[in-house]
Each structure stands twice: as structure tokens, then as C-alpha cells.
């Protein structure tokens, strides 16, 4: 990935970095990153990322918006928070990645929008917002079938043994979804919250 590395001869465009400093949750601390690499070295899934957090942060400072937002790094995060607790400059690394993930999804970058993680997130949010609770059965089914009918069927079959075991252990129920009594109230709150979120995005 050396071809994408910032070079001293390239003119840096700080507008993306400044946007991240101002608009991303925890982004104000990004300026303090000293490129020590503790985050990337602590990441259990770093080997699967196009760029580890250290490199990604340098690329943000170098104005490489396209390369940052089209990478798979944000979608690969497993949310272990190793990077957050170990950063000597208290940069909330995972929180910054998660906000960049949201931006990449919103702006339609394929590695984010079509990622397993975003597909699952859409199914998950649907359940949380509709019922006020996560229904693991419906979330999983919606997630599997987001890949199409035959892929969804194949994925469902592959996990049938686990599902049967969970039902038998009474850790997956067979009735209607669990819901909040007042899911309608929650939906009103979330609709307003989405409106506020949209104000930030513009």
C-alpha cells in the first residue's frame, strides 16, 4: 500500500482533516495523534484492514478523503476498544472510525455500504426502531436475505443447527417479537433524532 502513502512532495489539503476535527465524534483529539502505532499494533483485526488506524489518521491529515472513505478499515472494526484504552494521547480511535463509517455509508462508498457490517446494521436498526428491541431471529433473517433470495436461503441453512440448538436451549423463542410497550413513542424520538443528525450532515 506504499503507493497511497503521503509523500513530502505532495501538497497537503487540510480541508478534510479540519472537517473531521469539527464534525466527527472525538475528531477534535485526532490532531493529537503522534503516529506511534499503538492502535494498529493492538488491533485484533488489523491484518484484515486496508489501512490500520495509525495510517488512516495520517491519510486524513494528508487530505486523502477518497482513499480513507473508500477503504474497508471502518467496516472491519470489531469494537474491542483496545485502541481507545491504549492510546497514549487519549485519541478515541474507535469512536472516530465509527463516525467515519457512518459518513462513508451516508456518502455511498461501496466498501462501507455493501459491507456485511452495514447490511447487518440496517437489519438491526430496523428491529430496534420498529419494536424497541432486537429480535435476533428477524435481524438475522433480514441480514441473510439482504444478499438475495438464494444466498439468504443458503446462509439460513448453514446456521440451522445453531438456531435449532438455541431454540432447544430456550435462548431463541418461537412467538412474536419482544417489544417495548410504547414503541411508538420511541419512533417519535428517533425520527426527531434523525432530523437533528441530518442537520449535522449538511
Amino acid at each position: 500500500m506504499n503507493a497511497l502513502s503521503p509523500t513530502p512532495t505532495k501538497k497537503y489539503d487540510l480541508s478534510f482533516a479540519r472537517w473531521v476535527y469539527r464534525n466527527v465524534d472525538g475528531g477534535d483529539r485526532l490532531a493529537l495523534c503522534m503516529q506511534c502505532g499503538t492502535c494498529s499494533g493492538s488491533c485484533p483485526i488489523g491484518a484484515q484492514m486496508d489501512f490500520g488506524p495509525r495510517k488512516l489518521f495520517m491519510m486524513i491529515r494528508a487530505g486523502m478523503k477518497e482513499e480513507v472513505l473508500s477503504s474497508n478499515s471502518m467496516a472491519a472494526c470489531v469494537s474491542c476498544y483496545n485502541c481507545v484504552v491504549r492510546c497514549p494521547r487519549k485519541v478515541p480511535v474507535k469512536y472516530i472510525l465509527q463516525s467515519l463509517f457512518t459518513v462513508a455509508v451516508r456518502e455511498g462508498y461501496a466498501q462501507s455500504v455493501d459491507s456485511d457490517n452495514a447490511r447487518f446494521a440496517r437489519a438491526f436498526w430496523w428491529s430496534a426502531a420498529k419494536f424497541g428491541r432486537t429480535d435476533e431471529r428477524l435481524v438475522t433473517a433480514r441480514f441473510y436475505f439482504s444478499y438475495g433470495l438464494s444466498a439468504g436461503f443458503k446462509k439460513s441453512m448453514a446456521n440451522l443447527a445453531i438456531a435449532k440448538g438455541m431454540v432447544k436451549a430456550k435462548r431463541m423463542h418461537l412467538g412474536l417479537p419482544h417489544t417495548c410497550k410504547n414503541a411508538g413513542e420511541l419512533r417519535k424520538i428517533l425520527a426527531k433524532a434523525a432530523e437533528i443528525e441530518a442537520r449535522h450532515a449538511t
Partner: protein
Amino acid sequence: MTKTLSYYPGCSSQATGVHLDTSLKAVMSKVGITFREIDDWNCCGASVGHICSGHVPTLALSGRNLAAARAAGPEDVVTPCAACYLNTHHTNEEIRDKPEVKAEVNEALAEAGKSYDGSLHVRHICEVLVNDVRMDTLKSAVTNPLTGLKVAGWVGCQTVRPFAATERGGKWETYDDPSFLDDFTKACGAEAVPFKGKTKCCGGSVAVISPDKTLHLMKDILDEVKASGADVVSTPCPLCQTNLEMYQPAINQQFGTDFNIPVVFYSQLLAVAMGMDAKADAGLHQHLIPPDAVLSRAK
């Protein structure tokens, strides 16, 4: 000691982690803690809620729960789930420390005539057991010591990593080498074996979503369990318990291993050690891999 806490069980308490909820409530009844469940609580968004919804809607989810908890009283909010703890704690700090976030979350809550001022404390139930209940109370409630049981204490990542200090400055734990889980094991009269995978991550929600990307993480943990000679793994996290248990057949298939290691919650061990019923109180019948070494020691 008697104490009432505002209880946020989280969605897993009604599904994959129902045996955590059952055993925890049983143990609490023995150590003077009363749970007052948050009225009509909702999902916290877990590790993925923010991805397609964004920052403010995710804060609004936990904001509604915190508003309901505050309306019921000033007691600390407590949760047994790692992700619930992270999200609820983070939302609480954001509302408490950032006036602009407080204004926005309250603007959303106002749609339902609710508000929240950030005045509660959000805690993990393990931290309450360590600092409020204390180990000597747990020990003195043990009537059926689990003598000879070898336990690998797997804390996982999210439970301790972000919050190595409590808000009130009490002793919690370091994120790299926490000892509380082994202390619970010892309180049960069991043996806490040295275990190198203590705070390793199983992949969390990504393990559920894309197991192909995370089976190697769980295999590493199971290798360490095997090397430790433990009969059983103990964990505080509902997702850790489910992932490490349900993926053992897939791991065996991919790596040619023969893992069949039971994974239980610390609260199930405590319930059995406190002489309670293996099924009704400890939920030990709700495993995909039966924890025989624990069941055989139950009264």
C-alpha cells in the same frame, strides 16, 4: 447490605443471554441487591446501531432509557451486558459533559415529553459486586463450594477496557489484567487457572455477522483455555458466552480441532456455589455445550 439499583437488562436478557439474567437475579437476592427494572426499556443499539443511523439517534436510544431511569429515582443504573454498559455509559457522559449534546438529545426526547439531565451514574454489575457488595459478602453466601473445579476467567474486551476507573474513583480494574473474574471464581471455592486469553476479543458482533473473519480469534482463545487445563470458561459478557459456545463446531470444522468446552457466566457459578437450583436459578440447562463439571457439583 441492602441496595436498590435501576436495572437495564438489555435485549439479550430475553434471548441468547437469558441464563445470565436468571442467574444474576438469583445471586442478587442473596447479597442484598434489589433490581428495579427500567420501565419499558429499549435496545441500546449495541455495536452496530450507529452505522446507518448516526451519532444522535444512537444517543437518543440510551437517552430514552436514562430518562425513564431518572424519572423512577436517583439510584445508579446497572447493566450486566458489555455493549449495554458501553453505550449507556457513553451516552450518559456525553449528555453530562457536552451541553450541545444534552440539548440535542433532549430536543429528541421532548417529542415524547421526556428529558434527561445526565445526573445518574451508569455502572457494570461486576463493578457493583466488587465495590459495593464486596468479595467477603460473596464468600460468606457460598454454602456449596465448587471444590476442584478449574475455571478459566475470560473477561473479554468491552466489559473493562474503556472504563478502568469508576466515576466515583472507586477501585475497578485495569483493562489489560483484571482480576475480578478470578476473584469471583475463588469466592465460589473453585480454582482460577492461569489463562492468557483473559481480555482477548472474540470478534463481538462481527463474529455474529461474518464468522469467517473472526473464527481464528475464538480459536486462539480456545487454544489458551485448553492449555490452561480448565474444565469450564467463565465470562461476564452475553455475546462472548454465545459466540464462544456456538462456534466451536465451526472452529473444529475449519481448523481440525476437537473443542467441546463449556462456557458459562460467573453468575451461574455463584448461584450454584450459593446452593441454588442448577436449572431454575442458575439456568445451567440452557447451554449448547452442557457444563457437566458444574452440573455435577450442583445441589
